[in-house]
């Protein structure tokens, strides 16, 4: 094993892993974080702590990860390359690993023009694949990006994202292979609404044997309303089929319908060979996670002591 985090141990022993997402607060409130951790703690194995998600300023992912860990839930530190150069990224990784935060998810990050500080300068010194490579070298070769030795290197369980739905479709599996080559240990996909298309992507993944080289987690997002679903179709990386939009539109209780659709998707995904876990992205709706986990037969979670 690479880092012996709970997340890694659970994958390693063949468990169907469940993770969720926690967006840090836009303030110094630790109470808000504790509240979310209390909701999620018994229902997920680890939780992604987002990094200024959608380029909106929030408490730093590193700081929030420390608080989450203190409250008894294992964090997955999300790192984007949008705001920090290689100097800052390596520095933050060493800091987080020193504090026992060893799960990292490497992302490029939503462009700052989409967020609440659109006039900010770009960084994008490196991209997400290069970040995966750089972290792998820090861990396995104990070197910084400039090849200098790291005396006490970080232990890391390295993740990356995959989007089976973005264009060009036929290139997405090649891109996944590239992330594996760079050193990804686990993958989380973007929210799946089109299970058929995801299935086809997984077929391609399996044909290349990639599912045996990396732990793939399928992402889902429960829809709260038709309006939200409609707006989501404009969000980078999200594709929602017409029939789901239609169901949300005509539903008497849109929230209930959203949950129903999500449970149906989870049920189908669980059966797909090569899927090693579920990543629930319940944006601003963390309290729905326990229900989703229970109703999908994924409760109770195995606790590693």
């Amino acid at each position: 094993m690479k880092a012996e985090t709970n997340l890694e141990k659970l994958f390693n022993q063949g468990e169907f892993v469940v993770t969720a997402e926690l967006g840090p607060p836009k303030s110094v409130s630790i109470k808000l974080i504790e509240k979310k951790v209390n909701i999620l703690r018994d229902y997920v194995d680890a939780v992604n702590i987002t990094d200024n998600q959608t380029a909106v300023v929030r408490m730093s992912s590193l700081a929030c990860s420390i608080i989450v860990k203190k409250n008894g839930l294992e964090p997955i530190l999300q790192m984007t390359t949008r705001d920090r150069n290689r100097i800052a990224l390596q520095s933050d990784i060493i800091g987080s690993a020193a504090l026992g935060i060893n799960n990292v998810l490497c992302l490029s990050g939503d462009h700052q023009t989409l967020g609440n500080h659109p006039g900010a300068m770009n960084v994008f010194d490196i991209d997400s694949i290069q970040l995966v490579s750089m972290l792998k070298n820090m861990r396995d070769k104990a070197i910084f990006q400039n090849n200098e030795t790291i005396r006490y290197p970080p232990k890391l369980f390295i993740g990356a994202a995959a989007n089976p739905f973005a264009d060009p479709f036929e290139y997405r599996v090649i891109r996944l292979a590239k992330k594996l080559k760079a050193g990804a240990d686990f993958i989380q996909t973007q929210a799946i609404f089109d299970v058929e298309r995801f299935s086809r992507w997984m077929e391609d993944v399996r044909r290349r044997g990639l599912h045996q080289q990396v732990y793939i987690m399928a992402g889902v997002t429960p829809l709260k309303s038709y309006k939200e679903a409609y707006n989501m179709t404009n969000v980078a990386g999200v594709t929602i089929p017409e029939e789901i939009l239609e169901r949300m539109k005509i539903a008497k209780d849109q929230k209930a319908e959203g949950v129903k659709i999500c449970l149906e998707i989870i049920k189908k995904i669980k059966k797909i060979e090569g899927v090693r876990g579920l990543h629930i992205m319940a944006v601003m709706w963390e309290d729905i996670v326990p229900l989703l986990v229970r109703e999908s037969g994924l409760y109770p979670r195995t606790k590693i002591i």
Partner: protein
Amino acid sequence: MIIAKRKPVKDILKMINKDKKILLVGCGTCVTVCSAGGEKEVGILSKLIKIAFRKENKSIQIIERTIKRQCEKEFVEEIREEIISCDAILSMGCGIGVQTIASMFEDILVYPTLDTSFDGMPEEQGVWVELCSCCGNCILDKTAGICPITRCSKSLLNGPCGGVQNGMCEVDKDTPCAWQSIYERLKKQGKLDTLTEIEPIRDWSTSRNGGVRKIVREDLKL
């Protein structure tokens, strides 16, 4: 070439509101081609300034000239007499032109009338697009002649990211995803295998990130 666009007239007027005699100088190269600061634009701006001044019952004398290139001292020298006779110079050149004139006449005020925007070309009549960011280390041989540093919003070297939709960038639905374009062109050329290689972390020090740049050609120095 360098693409620029003229500042709003009200911003230009703020710069010269105390001046009595100004030289309005156009440039005959890049900004003529992109219709921002050539002889024609000098004529137009001159009229707009005079109208604005008249509205406030003020007067201003404007000398209009256009030189071949404002970035070369020998052309700026041609209008030395006009320059030193004025209170201020309104340059319709790009940022390079403005600075060249300013460096040659340090006790005269030189103002920019253009917002120099990018290095690009006319995609079609009236539409200019950014193509090169002068990174100092060209990789166009690897990317089928499409620059990802300039044309990918995130300057990804192993793109595309997950934000591409219908071949367009997440930043703007009218901006093509550079990596999708690279993919398609490499496919046409039968060179898709180049995309399986991971492009390593780049040395950005050849770009503006490494500090102000200079090229010295000893073989050309006098």
